[in-house]
């Protein structure tokens, strides 16, 4: 091979590395003006776990708006900046159009005129609260399985409005003036009232109005505490020991001084309103220094998570997989080794990066890789890519690379859509709280899914090439070998994974097998793989038949992965979304089309 070719086989991978480096640089560069990057690293407890404000803001924006950005020309540039605006300048935040409403009946109820974006601001929605509330109350009393699309949309809007309000009260009390002085005034007023109350108990003369003033202040703070579910103040050592900002004020009365965290948020609010970058940034620095000394583990973790959010490794991987796929296609069209190598190298960069992302998530959570539907998508992609890499090393014809990049891209896209439902690093429910079974059963069964999808995808490549009639015999033979090998692996992984699931059930519920939908789904994959193998050994199907059957494996696996959850029953049901059902149906339909492609007999075809 000429030197020029060697260089070009490295050129595209190098550009990809450059692309990653620039993303990493952008993520670590400090922000100008108000330091919202630093603000984003501050840890709070929400959704039962310690997380940076950055994650809190991102997940809230994703669930409310469906995107991590806020529309508008003067809009906050980052989720953290939006959270700061929401707490420290709520009047302006209320005018951001972040609540999407698509359902016509809901638009009718809220009396809003449909604009171009179909998104509305809190301020625009506020007049229709009296109409929304009784409807929400009525619907909440009914079974969620029977909700119509309108009812679902209304409940979603209500949930998002509640979430928005809770966030709005997380770091400040809207409508309060100068926070730092308000907070210290609170301390002195309560202190004065306590002194008066002592006088009262000693039957001395006391000042009633001081006590009334203090009790009205306490009432405001207690109401404030009921309006948020975000815990800002690290009071104890464990995650359970955190306090809400208003509660930390009440605690301060006993201690006689404000907690450094309480003080930090008061200063941040004041500096934000005064647009005083120096004060804002030094308040962050002071608090970060305090955290580094007093809560180093929690602060380091939340800084790491902020960086992870900013780099967004899985998004970068999606870009890399597109590049790898295009290179693989080019290598087929021009028969080029150069592009085949370039494609494989780009894939390897993507795999490395995706592995790093997975490991980071595992470290943040302290858990094995798969803990929820979101991470299962990422892990299925990862597993399929690892297997395809082995295939590519074995066959060296870019098929492994192409298939890996398609599955990698598709699974990350699915993961992205699953992340819209909220926090993807959520805490584990008690039943699932066992790293041993998460590391064995869940990982193995997910590899079973990954390999069954891989066999199906390779089979699709075979069927398409056959339809175009240009597949050389050697390629067909190597594809046959790949599919057969991957099905063998899939049988092993899905069987062992399924039985391990049974053993876990025996350990935690006392029954090995309960015919739960998800268990049944996994069993279907095992049986289907076994059917393919037996049909092949018995000579009932040949090369083409095996490919068609492998494509049907995609349908079986997608049923087990998503379909069973949509039934809304059983121990593994995670909720039903209409959009997911449509996508699943579309996927099944597309697979049926590929199978039909395989059933057509071509005159030129030999098998």
């Amino acid at each position, binding site marked *: 091979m000429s030197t020029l070719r060697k260089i070009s086989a490295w050129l595209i991978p190098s550009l990809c590395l450059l692309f990653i480096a620039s993303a990493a640089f952008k993520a670590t560069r400090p922000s100008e003006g108000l330091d919202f990057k630093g603000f984003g690293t501050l840890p709070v407890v929400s959704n039962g776990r310690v997380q940076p404000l950055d994650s809190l803001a991102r997940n809230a924006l994703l669930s409310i708006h469906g995107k991590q950005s806020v529309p508008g020309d003067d809009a906050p540039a980052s989720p953290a900046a939006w959270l700061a605006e929401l707490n420290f300048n709520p009047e302006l935040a209320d005018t951001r159009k972040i609540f999407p409403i698509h359902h016509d009946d809901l638009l009718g109820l809220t009396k809003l005129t449909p604009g171009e974006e179909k998104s509305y601001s809190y301020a625009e929605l506020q007049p229709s609260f009296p109409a929304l509330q009784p409807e929400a109350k009525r619907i909440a009393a009914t079974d969620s399985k029977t909700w119509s699309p309108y009812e679902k949309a209304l409940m979603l809007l209500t949930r998002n409005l509640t979430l928005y309000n809770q966030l709005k009260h997380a770091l400040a009390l809207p409508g309060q003036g100068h926070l730092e002085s308000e907070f210290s005034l609170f301390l002195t007023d309560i202190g004065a009232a306590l002194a008066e109350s002592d006088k009262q108990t000693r039957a001395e003369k006391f000042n009633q109005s001081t006590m009334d003033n203090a009790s009205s202040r306490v009432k405001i703070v207690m109401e404030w505490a009921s309006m948020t*579910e975000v815990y800002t103040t690290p009071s104890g050592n464990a995650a359970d020991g955190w306090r809400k900002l208003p509660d930390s004020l009440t605690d301060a009365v006993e201690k006689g001084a404000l907690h450094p965290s309480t003080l930090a948020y008061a200063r941040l609010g004041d500096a934000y309103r005064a647009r005083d970058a120096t004060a804002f940034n030094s308040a962050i620095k002071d608090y970060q220094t305090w955290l580094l000394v007093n809560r180093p583990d929690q602060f380091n973790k939340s800084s790491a998570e902020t960086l992870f959010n900013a780099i967004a490794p899985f998004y970068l991987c999606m870009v890399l997989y597109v590049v790898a796929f295009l290179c693989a296609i080019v290598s087929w069209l021009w028969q080029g080794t150069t592009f085949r190598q370039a494609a494989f190298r780009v894939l390897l960069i993507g795999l490395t990066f995706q592995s790093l992302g997975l490991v980071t998530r595992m470290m943040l959570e302290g858990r094995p890789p798969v803990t929820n539907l979101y991470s299962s998508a990422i892990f299925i992609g990862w597993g399929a890519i690892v297997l395809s890499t082995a295939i590519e090393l074995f066959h060296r014809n870019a098929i492994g690379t192409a298939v890996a990049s398609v599955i990698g891209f598709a699974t990350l896209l699915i993961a992205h859509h699953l992340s819209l439902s909220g926090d993807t690093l959520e805490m584990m429910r008690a039943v699932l709280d066992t790293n041993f079974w998460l590391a064995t059963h869940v990982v193995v069964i997910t590899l079973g899914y990954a390999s069954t999808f891989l066999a199906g995808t390779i089979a699709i490549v075979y069927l398409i090439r056959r339809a175009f009639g240009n597949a050389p015999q050697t390629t067909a033979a190597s594809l046959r070998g790949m599919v057969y090998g991957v099905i*063998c692996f899939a049988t092993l992984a899905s069987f*062992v994974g399924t039985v391990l699931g049974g053993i876990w059930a025996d*350990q935690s519920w006392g*029954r090995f097998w309960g015919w739960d939908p998800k268990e049944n789904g996994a069993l279907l994959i095992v049986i289907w793989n076994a059917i393919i193998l037996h049909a092949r050994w018995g000579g*009932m199907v040949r090369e083409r038949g095996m490919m068609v059957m492998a494509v049907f494996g995609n349908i079986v696996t997608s049923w087990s992965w998503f379909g069973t959850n949509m039934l809304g029953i059983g121990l593994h049901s995670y909720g039903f979304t209409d959009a997911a059902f449509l996508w699943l149906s579309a996927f099944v339909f597309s697979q049926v089309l590929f199978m039909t492609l395989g059933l057509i007999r071509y005159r030129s075809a030999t098998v």
Partner: protein
Amino acid sequence: MIFRPLKFFSSLRLTVALLSFAMVLIFVATLTQVELGIYEVQAKFFRSWIAWWDVMPGAKKFLIPIPGGTLLGILLIVNLLAAHGSRFKLRWNKAGMIVIHSGILLMLLGEIFTGLLGREAQMTINEGEISNYSTFPRETELVVIRPDADGMETVTAIPQARLKAGAEFPLSGFSVKIHSYFPNSEILPESEATEKFDKIRATEGFGKGYAVRLTPRETMDDRRDLTTAFVEVIPDGGNSQGRWLLSNAFKGEQSFEAAGRLWKMAIRPRRLYHPFSIKLLDFSHDRYLGTDVPKNFSSKIKILNPDTGENREDLIYMNHPLRYGGLTFYQAGFENNDTTTIFQVVRNPVWTLPYISCAMVGLGLLWVFSQHLIKAIARRNKITPAP
């Protein structure tokens, strides 16, 4: 063409056909769970010879018969044994297949034995209280209790299967007669009852003034039958002393006098008494801060066994059951504002079989497929010799 049974039963075609039917059965049974509870589905689909698939769920218009779990399971076992029996050769490359299929056979047998020998009951204990029995939540029994002087009780239990209208059960000095029996029922105060309700009323006990009507048996997992019966107490050689309304809807027993002493009776969930007792010291249910997501459930208990003199504490929590006296206690639930714990109590003498069969099949598959892989690599090296 002549039908040759051995060839038919040992054929791979039969394997593929049976496995395909199994897929249909499992898929249909999964869909049916939306309509029916898991217990009903298990009985109708997996523990049956023929299962009826209701194509339009609940409509009962199009019912298609498909082979049930029992039929498929037996045929698969016959197929497996016939295949290995007719083609048995002890060679290294066949050994893997034999191990895999023996493992699968062991797993199928394990499930059959679990069905035959296994028992599942529940134990509900309040904090600070002691219990020495478990109950079967889906079965009831009619009990007649003779309270004895020393605080002991002599219990006569009549299983649900023997309850039917007209049945008479002689006891010492009197007999209990079932006037009418409702496997599942709705009970309402007389004033709220419609004409669908039975005309019969109780004349004694705290069921007076209630009307009863028969309802279909419950099939959903979270619902229980209300077993109800009108019962008469008839002294030997005498006339009925009155009619009582018994039901597991009522808490506690109802008392009556017969043969010169006090008795109590009730319909309640069937009990299984243990030779030891369990005391619930404390139940805790933690949630993650600011959420309703359960962090852990755990029951601190004390085992009291008069036979062995045991008196020790233990902790039962999710994924950490207690194995004691041939039984396994699992944390299954809680109620009464986190002051009552519910254990799933399971007896399954063959619980180790799935572990063994999983290891056998896993290792067998690994053995067979690595042989395939070695062959494939050898083939490739033959085509393109290494440089």
